[in-house]
């Protein structure tokens, strides 16, 4: 097991290295002089010179990269041009908000996706199966920013049941905090619920047709026990792995959700940075998201091996 984790960690090194090069090169996409792009068109020459020195823009590209990655490895992601604060501090301030939203969204996706997938597989070919499939496909196809707007219209503007926007920290008031993120979590989790439902359904159908399930039925076990103890246990392992992988993707979806519901998280940070041409923040957010995603993939791999005794040897 330790050897597996060590091997996966070693394999990650080249991926992370290339990832850092890609993220570093993003800045080179800026049209014209990067210093002007960073400081604005009307900046005075002294400021431009200072920026060139600060970001090593007067140095050759490989030197610029080495200096940047050296800073990154020491936790220095640069400073926000607009807020004048270290990018890492800004990210660490916002990350808990997005993580709370992502955990709630994943909880919603797992409860809805697993339940619908299992029912759909057990009741294959019935109206429940068709209904679950249609809802899953709708969940995947619904643009989450539109779903968010429609939910605000219905539950906030028309019914007045839920707050339309804003965020309350759980430390301040747990109940209000959960309520403030209820709609955003449903919006963010709906697409993944659809994906999980489809995977659960096909994994359950496969498990229900397997020899061990036939044997369990032949032993005279109750159908509920066959489904829960035998089919579900085997079918759900890959689905849980998928959930871990999708968790990384939630950070991407959070960008739009946080924008619609005005939640001061990680996603809103990147959008505000884009509007203000605060490129160091954009780079920092991309880097941290990718690291979280790579970390989640690693956890998914380890979880998969832990759940599957045959792979442990």
């Amino acid at each position, binding site marked *: 097991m330790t050897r597996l984790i060590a091997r996966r960690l070693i394999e990650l090194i080249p991926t992370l290295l290339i990832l850092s090069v*890609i993220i570093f090169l993003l800045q080179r996409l800026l049209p014209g002089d990067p210093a002007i792009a960073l400081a604005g068109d009307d900046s005075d020459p002294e400021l431009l010179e200072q920026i060139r020195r600060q970001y090593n823009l007067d140095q050759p590209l490989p030197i610029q990269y080495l200096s940047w990655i050296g800073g990154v490895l020491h936790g220095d992601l640069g400073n926000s041009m607009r807020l004048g604060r270290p990018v890492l501090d800004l990210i660490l301030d916002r990350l808990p908000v997005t993580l709370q939203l992502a955990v709630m969204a994943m909880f919603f996706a797992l409860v809805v996706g697993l339940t619908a997938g299992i029912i759909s597989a057990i009741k294959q070919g019935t109206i429940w199966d068709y209904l679950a499939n249609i809802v899953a496909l709708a969940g995947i196809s619904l*643009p989450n920013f539109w779903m968010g707007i429609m939910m605000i219209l219905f539950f906030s*503007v028309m019914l007045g049941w839920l707050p339309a926007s804003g965020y309350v920290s759980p430390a301040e008031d747990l109940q209000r905090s959960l309520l403030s993120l209820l709609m955003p979590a449903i919006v963010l989790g709906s697409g993944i619920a659809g994906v999980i439902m489809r995977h659960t359904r096909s994994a359950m159908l496969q498990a229900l047709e397997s020899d061990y399930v036939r044997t369990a039925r032949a032993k005279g076990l109750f159908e509920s026990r066959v489904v829960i103890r035998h089919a579900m246990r085997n079918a759900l392992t890959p689905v849980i792995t998928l959930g871990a992988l999708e968790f990384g993707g939630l950070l991407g979806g959070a960008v739009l959700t946080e924008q619609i519901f005005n939640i001061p998280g990680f996603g809103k940070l990147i959008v505000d940075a884009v509007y203000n041409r605060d490129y160091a923040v954009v780079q920092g957010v991309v880097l941290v998201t*990718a690291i979280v995603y790579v970390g989640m993939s690693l956890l998914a791999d380890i979880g998969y091996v832990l759940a599957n005794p045959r792979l442990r040897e």
Partner: protein
Amino acid sequence: MAIASTAPAVPHEGQFARFWKRLRRRKAALAGLVFIVIVILAAILAPMIAQFDPLAQDYTAIRQPPTALHWFGTDELGRDIFARIVFGARASMLAGVISLSIALAIGVPFGLAAGYFGGWIDLSISRVVDAMLAIPFLILAIALAAFLGPSLTNSMIAIGVTAAPLFVRLTRGQVLSVKAEDYVAAARSLGNPHWRVAFRHILPNVLPALIVQATLALAAAITSEASLSFLGLGQQPPAPSWGSMLNTAQRSLSNAPWVAVWPGMMIFLTVLSFNLLGDGMRDALDPRSR
């Protein structure tokens, strides 16, 4: 040519007819196809379909609900929403097709090279793909669009480049399985150069999987363009796009909800149609479903 007879190559007419027959049986996929054709026709014939100029402002008709004159109502500048939806279809369809073409133009050759040559070529390409896939799709697209500058063209480039790794990975996987077939070995042993074996004998056989994925990727590209336009990084005002229409609609949600309903509904139905068609095509091409 002798080589051609050794390879099953491109599905011939009979195979296409069989595929179409199987696809036709899938009602949901067919409904999706019909809706897509309608949207494409609306995009092409937009000036003939729309009664109003999508940019024309009318301050005497601000935020009017749907009427016989303005079928979908008007927006905060008195512009006809139906005209903007019809013209907005152009941005969505164009973004879908162009960004997909960019993704295919980058993804397929690199995937083909990685799968066909293997070794260090495969290793280097696969590592770059792994790294790019580690960044969530929308975050990478936003970052690229932000650095390139906000415009519809740049958003299409951003989406295309972001989607390319998916096609590299898919093509590579398909090539690896096709490469082991006897007809590929036969083509090589007859002295065909690598490029000819790759493009004439391998590529046509990985096409069905690519077409299915491309249909599903079109749905993702349309959603992504709408997302970028919603964030102000795609189509720039006053030109209409479904995503940017939703952005402005947010501000008048309580007194003019219809402004938000139509563009979102169009994105949803178009994306749903591509997903239904893609699913149907995958089932129709699956040998187990025959």
